[in-house]
């Protein structure tokens, strides 16, 4: 969209698998009261990419609303996920079906370990990532904040590394900023904090660590006013990015007056 003004204060684009995005906020499409509210929140967030899940068609109830009727796949980049997959085989099967249904190669891989934590199973994730990349997919990968596995996933050819800030749906924010920063420093592909953001400051903190973007669902969908929170998140991501690029002042242990010391009466 070269003739459109950038939607953020910064002109620096987020480039994923060769495509440029002006928004650094990716939003989910789950847990909303309705698809209509979902669409309103996605627009308020300024998101260009939305994650979507793949599920069986409800044959008995074909009159039910469809996601595509509210979030136009021509306006939003659909990012099919593998939520609910606990093995590499399930994840690969799901994303091949997603590619057939939508025709897109860009996918979000997540292979979960258990239902209580939804923590990623990293060995299965790596197996699935390799299989998908071999099959021509562009894989954005949900992963733990382990820099070693992050490097293995990048070496395997993933187009974005997406470590958790904290557990999916927990709203606990970035629990291990040191590891997130280590991943940022070593990674040559975009790093996106996926999961754990609870409120706007969490998103800003993630961006101030130098990550390239933030992916969230529950923080917006479970807010009392999801559309307003979506707007807050948009501003937080922009603010965090700007602060990171601006370069923060050094921390000091004692006060440093802002007004001149000379000329005091």
């Amino acid at each position, binding site marked *: 969209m070269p003739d459109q003004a950038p939607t953020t204060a910064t002109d620096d684009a987020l480039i994923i698998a060769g495509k440029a995005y002006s928004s650094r906020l990716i939003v989910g*499409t789950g847990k909303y009261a309705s698809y209509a509210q979902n669409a309103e929140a996605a627009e308020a967030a300024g998101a260009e990419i939305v994650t979507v*899940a793949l599920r*069986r*068609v409800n*044959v008995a109830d074909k009159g039910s609303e469809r996601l595509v009727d509210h979030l136009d796949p021509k306006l939003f980049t659909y990012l099919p*996920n593998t939520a609910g997959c606990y093995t590499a085989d399930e994840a690969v099967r799901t994303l*091949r079906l*997603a590619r*057939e249904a*939508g025709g897109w190669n860009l996918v979000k891989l997540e292979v979960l370990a258990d239902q209580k934590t939804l923590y990623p199973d990293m060995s299965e994730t790596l197996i699935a990532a390799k299989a998908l990349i071999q099959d021509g997919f562009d894989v954005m990968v949900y992963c733990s904040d382990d820099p070693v596995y992050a490097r293995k996933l990048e070496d395997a050819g993933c187009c974005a590394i997406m470590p958790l800030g904290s557990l999916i749906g927990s709203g606990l924010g970035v629990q291990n900023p040191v590891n997130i920063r280590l991943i940022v420093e070593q990674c040559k592909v975009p790093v996106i904090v996926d999961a754990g953001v609870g409120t706007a400051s969490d998103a800003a903190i993630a961006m101030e660590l130098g990550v390239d973007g933030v992916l969230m669902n529950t923080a917006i969908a479970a807010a009392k006013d999801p559309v307003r929170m979506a707007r807050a998140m948009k501003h937080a991501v922009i603010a965090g990015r700007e602060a990171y690029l601006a370069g923060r002042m050094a921390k000091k242990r004692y006060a440093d007056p802002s007004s001149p010391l000379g000329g005091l009466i």
Partner: protein
Amino acid sequence: MNLFLNGEATEAPDGATVGEFLRQLAMPEKGVAVERNREIVPKSLYGTTRLTEGDQIEIVQFVGGG
């Protein structure tokens, strides 16, 4: 013939193709993917892929998710 659609027993006319089966279900071809016995049926083959007794058919679409 008897087959399974999304895990539930159902029926389809003998010799029906995947395309005919979708039309019988009043299912739009756009935005869905079909799997027959764990193999994806590409849209280009809906008209020529014939269902057989006992087939396990999955039809999926995009829904909201995080």
